[in-house]
């Protein structure tokens, strides 16, 4: 049997040492009425057969080429340097446990410390945690922080926040008796104003105005941001947001049907004690050597139990490592290039799409970075037609927003080369 190590002789010798005749003698505490004869599952397979079976399932999916993928909506195709997988596939990283024993986990701890610093630099805030599950739960956790911080029990979602993030926020909020309000102005009941920059449609909002409005009402400002955009856009720390969160998939992670990716969260230092999840800090040994440890554990569930800031335990360390490798590979100028090229191509594409007969920018007065909404005649037929030509076209956002009937959002990144844009436009004109 694969992955089992005991030989029949080992088992006999071990039973003899224990002083019992069979493994059944060790299971005497289980009531007989509960004992199963066998599991209702097929018998095991050889690795060859296993992989053939799994590959057959993979073969029933259709994968669109990177360069012909123009769909985003929270998950994006980007160039992933080979260094990322080369590091994350090192078994010393991916088969290690949560670094409770610091002296035996310095590799993971230091990598996470670097990740925390990278996220703090990108967001312009004081402290980042070690990672959360995804962008959606990061938004929800930030809202819970605000509620605990100021005791208010309403959060205000401003503008087009990713609809699935709103759904997760609602699920978390309901559990804590917090109301989620969409639109309107913050007031003295508002714990936090949450906005996305760029928003779900790709449009840029005025984060300074939103932050000021939040603060004027005594609420916190939570900015949900695209990490690549922070190479060029003002970071939350610059416009005074209290908490920054977001989805880190673009930092070196494959789409993988939506996960695993990584949620990030960073905040001002006044809020650090309310941050959920793990934090890594520096410490020293008796010889004065610098090392890294899990810090401020007193906020966490294994110490505080029902009084913990969050129940999160396992988080997304390996994805955080991928993000750290990606950001370190890119450096400040590489990351800026990625953002600028994506910007240029998206603007070139927007111009060409808006010139198609019957097509128009859905919000012509609004600015965007590298994703944008277009109002399109017969939008579902358009998407189907593109798929037939091997192109993953825009995302139909009317499934979440009734007022956006006929609106598709298109996204461009550095992987959609000029020829891919030509192919897209040609397919639409045909």
């Amino acid at each position, binding site marked *: 049997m694969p992955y089992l190590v005991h030989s029949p002789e080992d088992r006999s010798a*071990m039973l003899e040492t224990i002083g019992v005749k069979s493994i059944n003698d060790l299971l005497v505490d289980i009531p007989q009425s509960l004992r199963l004869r066998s599991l209702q599952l097929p018998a095991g397979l050889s690795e060859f057969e296993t992989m053939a079976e799994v590959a057959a399932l993979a073969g029933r999916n259709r994968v669109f080429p990177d360069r012909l993928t123009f769909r985003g909506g929270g998950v994006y195709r980007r160039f992933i340097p080979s260094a990322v997988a080369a590091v994350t596939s090192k078994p010393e990283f991916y088969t290690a446990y949560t670094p409770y*024993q610091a002296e035996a986990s310095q590799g993971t701890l230091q990598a996470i410390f670097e990740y925390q610093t990278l996220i703090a630099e990108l967001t312009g805030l004081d402290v980042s945690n070690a990672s959360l*599950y995804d962008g959606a739960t990061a938004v929800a956790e930030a809202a819970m922080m605000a509620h605990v911080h100021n005791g208010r029990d309403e959060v205000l979602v401003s503008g087009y926040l990713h609809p699935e993030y709103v759904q997760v926020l609602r699920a978390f909020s309901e559990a804590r008796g917090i109301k989620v309000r969409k639109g309107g102005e913050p007031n003295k009941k508002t714990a936090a104003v949450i906005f996305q920059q760029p928003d779900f449609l790709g449009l840029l909002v005025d984060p300074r105005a939103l932050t000021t409005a939040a603060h004027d009402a005594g609420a916190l400002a939570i900015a949900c941001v695209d990490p690549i955009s922070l190479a060029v856009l003002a970071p939350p720390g610059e416009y005074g947001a209290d908490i920054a969160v977001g989805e880190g998939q673009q930092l070196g992670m494959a789409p993988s049907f939506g996960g695993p990716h990584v949620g990030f969260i960073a905040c001002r230092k006044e809020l650090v004690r309310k941050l959920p999840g793990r934090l890594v800090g520096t410490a020293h040994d008796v010889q004065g050597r610098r090392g890294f440890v899990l810090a401020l554990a007193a906020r966490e*569930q294994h110490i505080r139990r029902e009084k913990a800031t969050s129940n999160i335990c*396992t988080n997304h*360390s390996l994805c955080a490592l991928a993000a750290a490798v990606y950001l370190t590979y890119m450096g400040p100028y590489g990351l800026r290039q990625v953002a600028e*090229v994506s910007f240029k191509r998206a603007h070139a594409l927007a111009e060409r799409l808006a010139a198609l007969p019957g097509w128009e920018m859905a919000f012509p007065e609004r600015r965007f970075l590298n994703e944008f909404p277009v109002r399109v005649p017969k939008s579902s037929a358009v998407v189907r037609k593109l798929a037939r030509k091997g192109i993953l076209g825009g995302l139909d956002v009317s499934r979440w927003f009734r007022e956006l009937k006929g609106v598709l959002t298109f996204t461009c990144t550095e992987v959609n080369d000029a020829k891919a844009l030509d192919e897209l436009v040609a397919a639409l004109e045909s």
Partner: protein
Amino acid sequence: MTEPLSFELSRPAVDPPRLPGAEEGGAALGDVLPGELLRSRPPGLPRLSEPELMRHYSRLASLNYSISENFYPLGSCTMKYNPVANEAAAALPGFAGLHPYQDEETVQGALELMWRLEQALCAVVGVDRVTLQPAAGAHGEWTALRMIRAYQHSKGEARTEVLVPDSAHGTNPASAALSGFQVVEVLSGPDGRISLADLESKLSPRTAALMLTNPNTLGLFEREILDIAELVHSTGAMLYYDGANLNAFMGICRPGDMGFDAVHMNLHKTFTTPHGGGGPGAGPVGVKSELVPFLPSPTVERTDGHLTLDHKHPQSIGRVRSFYGNFGMLVRAYTYILAMGGDGLSQASQDAVLSANYLRKLVEGDLEMPHDGPCMHEFVASANHLNHENGVRALDIAKALLDRQFYAPTVYFPLVVPEAIMVEPTETESKATLDSFAHAIKEIVAEARTNPQGLHEEPKNTPVGRLDEVAAARRINAYLQGQSEDPVLRWKSPSETAS
């Protein structure tokens, strides 16, 4: 041995990486966007050439213990071998390259895999449906409690309390509190099992659920589980299974048959998806029929071989994560289940129980065993006697094991055992490994009697020695209170810290 931080190795003069399209013309960002939307200065990211970057991370990797090289006897964590075929499966372009918002027709294979994994997990734990959405065990606990709450509300009941044994994982009370319940602790009896009398005294019409892991965190099977289930159900409350210890009895018995109404599973424990240095994992939740309407949305449905994502669940608790869960981890777990089969999973659990009892026997002369055996897949020993006699604590033993190339057991948990040392060997550690671990324990205990001071100074063979966490916490406090510029939780260039 230590490694500088990437920030300390950074050389800004190194050429930036060559990226597609960098030389292209087109709209300049600064011409289109108003200045107030733009960043005033670039983020302080480090810059390393690729050769330097690869060496940096390779060195960091070498500072880690990992299951690929070391035995991890971590109780409750089920650190077993992570099959490499799982990794190959998840990396298949037909999975890794899928966008979550592709049309259903183009992702039939992915949905089929999710559906089959759900069926397999239902068979292992004895439930009717499973949601694959939760990203980790604690997330699964929370999801299950939300479903229980919604179910009870739908019946017009407003139950407000969740009972949690004193030996439970810390996530249990945290998840209960964060899903809107008050936590009531249930005491363990002298045999380490839940006290039925105490349970009875705490059950009331306010009780929404009892959260239980079985075998419990002491590695002991709750013999009276059927009576517990009857008692809980008789008050109209539900029984929740914490699946952290599922590795004890796959194919031997099932939580569903014991009377549990909701069950979470950790794919990163029982089903060999790698732990990743602290995730990503996956925490699917299985439920009995009465909770099915409340499952997170969407669910995967299969009709005549055609798969769909069903979003129409009016009573659903909603969505607990974006998209469909940690899909890559689901691929790994399914690959493992295919390879093992029903027979293999059963043998895995039997071997896990055998290994735990064997190792328990080998060390029972050296460490205190607060409870009688046999144990299931793990056992809890105590260093209380060494602490009294020689001042050697569980932590000292943990650190001394690191020096002998073993990762440490879980220590100081469960809270009901003083100086607890919780050991879970799993089925993928050989007899020879278990023998050498027992030998190391023997040596350490002998040293505790002859040279306790030496043990306080371990580990000595690790990249750094014992790190002063108390001093670190003091420095963090100083920073948070504005008395120090050193943020401790991130790197700052020396010039910034000095200013």
